[in-house]
């Protein structure tokens, strides 16, 4: 029950302190507050702090070593490879997801038949675990028994499609699986944005004789800027976290050629008994997210004061 101010009723009655106003709501919000403070802020700060220590098997807050861990991190080949992989994977994901997502959304926007069926087909991979996706594509890309073999059987003897065993392009094998899983979602997002466009705009452009493709490029896409930005932010956040897919599809191989930062962190933290490195690497991950997030947040909310 909300406690209301009792007002002046004599000196003997004290005004309930503001702390107890709206009691129930505050009590009910404890989980949220606790999570925000303890977990999101507290744990993050803890990890950042310990990234400056020389923790090995157990956290050692007393063994301060400054930027030592970071120095070592950026000199580790494995880490550098994972950053490079993330870069290519990220770029590829962004580009292909947005392009494929947009083209598919535009096609579905044309009021075609079977829209629901097609959308169901394009979107179902999103419902699967990355492990399922990774294993399925690992099988398809199997050189001896998978896609490569089938095409060779069809006559193209020298057809080679074995990304998962080629250190140079293994990240593209992962990209294929990643796009397969995620582009449906981007399409749904963009389609919703497209559908939010006033129908009269389409009528106006039709009366003026402007062909559909021009309308999409010069009018619709600029109008959809907010949706594109949202899609971009969400895809980017997902890219930095990529882990399950790599574990399932290639386990980081061949060798270390498909390592990604998230995997590096987990391995250092829990398998290699090198907590310090793990903390440093995860802090780097956090930094990269901030680099994407803070400009966006500023653009979206900058100037306006948050309550």
């Amino acid at each position, binding site marked *: 029950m909300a406690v209301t101010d009792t007002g002046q009723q004599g000196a003997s009655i004290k005004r309930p302190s503001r702390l107890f106003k709206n009691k129930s709501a505050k009590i009910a919000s404890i989980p*949220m507050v606790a999570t925000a403070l303890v*977990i999101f802020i507290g744990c993050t700060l803890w990890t950042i702090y310990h990234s400056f220590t020389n923790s090995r098997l157990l956290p050692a807050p007393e063994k301060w070593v400054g930027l030592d861990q970071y120095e070592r991190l950026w000199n580790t080949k494995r880490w550098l490879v994972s950053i490079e992989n993330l870069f290519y994977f990220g770029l590829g994901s962004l580009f292909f997801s947005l392009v494929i997502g947009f083209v598919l959304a535009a096609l579905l926007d044309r009021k075609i038949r079977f829209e629901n069926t097609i959308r169901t087909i*394009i979107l179902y991979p999103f*419902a699967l*675990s990355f492990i399922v996706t990774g294993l399925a594509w690992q099988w398809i890309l199997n050189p001896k028994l998978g896609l490569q073999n089938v095409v060779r059987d069809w006559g193209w003897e020298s057809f080679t499609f074995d990304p998962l065993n080629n250190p140079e392009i293994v990240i593209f094998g992962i990209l294929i699986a990643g796009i397969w899983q995620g582009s449906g979602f981007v399409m749904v997002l963009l389609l919703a944005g497209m559908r939010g466009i006033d129908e009269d705009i389409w009528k106006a452009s039709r009366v003026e004789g402007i062909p559909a493709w021009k309308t999409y490029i010069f009018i619709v896409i600029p109008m959809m800027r907010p949706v594109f930005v949202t899609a971009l932010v969400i895809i980017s956040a*997902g890219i930095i976290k990529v882990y399950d897919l790599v574990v*399932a599809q290639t386990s980081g191989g061949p060798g270390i050629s498909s390592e990604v930062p998230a995997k590096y962190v987990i391995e250092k933290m829990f398998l290699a008994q090198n907590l310090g490195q793990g903390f440093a690497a995860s802090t780097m991950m*956090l930094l990269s997210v901030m680099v994407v997030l803070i400009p966006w947040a500023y653009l979206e909310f900058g100037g306006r004061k948050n309550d």
Partner: protein
Amino acid sequence: MTDMTGPRGPKPKRVFNSTNIMIYGTLFIVCLYYLLPLYVMIVTSLKGMPEIRLGNIFSPPVEVTYEPWVKAWSEACTGINCEGLSRGFMNSVRILVPSVIISIAIASVNGYALANWKFKGSETFFTILIFGAFIPYQVMIYPIVILLRESGDGMTNVMQMFNPMLEWMGFEGFGKIRLMGSLWGLVIVHTIFGMPILTLLFRNYFTSVPEELFKAARVDGAGFWGIYFRIMLPMSLPIFVVAMILQVTGIWNDFLFGVIYTKPDTYPMTVQLNNIVNSVQGVKEYNVNMAATLLTGLVPLFIYFASGKLFVRGIAAGAVKG
């Protein structure tokens, strides 16, 4: 009486004009790309190993066999334990049910509080929560391990204080309460990390409920919980369904938390699946692997196909996955 010459009525359209061919053609090829893995998985899982070694993953099974499925479910080996995926399945279920219930219960109440009972600082905490959703989990994982372990120990100490009395009454005392490595630890983790999106979902929904409804209830004397249970809950069934879809899919498909916060006997299905397929030495039984993969994907796929439009709503609302 007008006589009509020249064009009249609807314009004759050729069904097979170039635009249509391009559109439907592209969509057809695209659908092939998306359906391919599913087809291959199903087909592989129904073949015997000799057939698979013939090397054509696209061909339907000449001889359909359900052996791989049986093997995957009850005989596949993770390490020395050869009880199949059924164990992982049960674990996943045991993780899923409490996680979904608790996380949605908490988030819905939080969202409701944020929408209708704002207090000083509530929006700030909410903003922190949302930003927290973008923080890579890796940054928070380890401290949570410590927290779970310590909480487990703490709870053990507290509960074991009652042991003398319980034993005197004839009951068994509390053993060691373990959070880290147990299913309940994982439940707590899923609740924590599900909070930002779910709270956002519920908060947005409750904000869209007309304020007059809320005010009328206040005038009638109802309080925080009264309004929640008697007014808000009954009318928010769709959003609860959306939240459930989101959580069931997310939690069932999770791998990272499963790998870190559980031990082999409490591995969820995804973790066990990865073990079965990727850590087998020697002969790989691809058909069993595919059957196992499909089994793991069945639950979320079922939810997906059953929920239709609601699924789309769910992901549009809470898109930060994995």
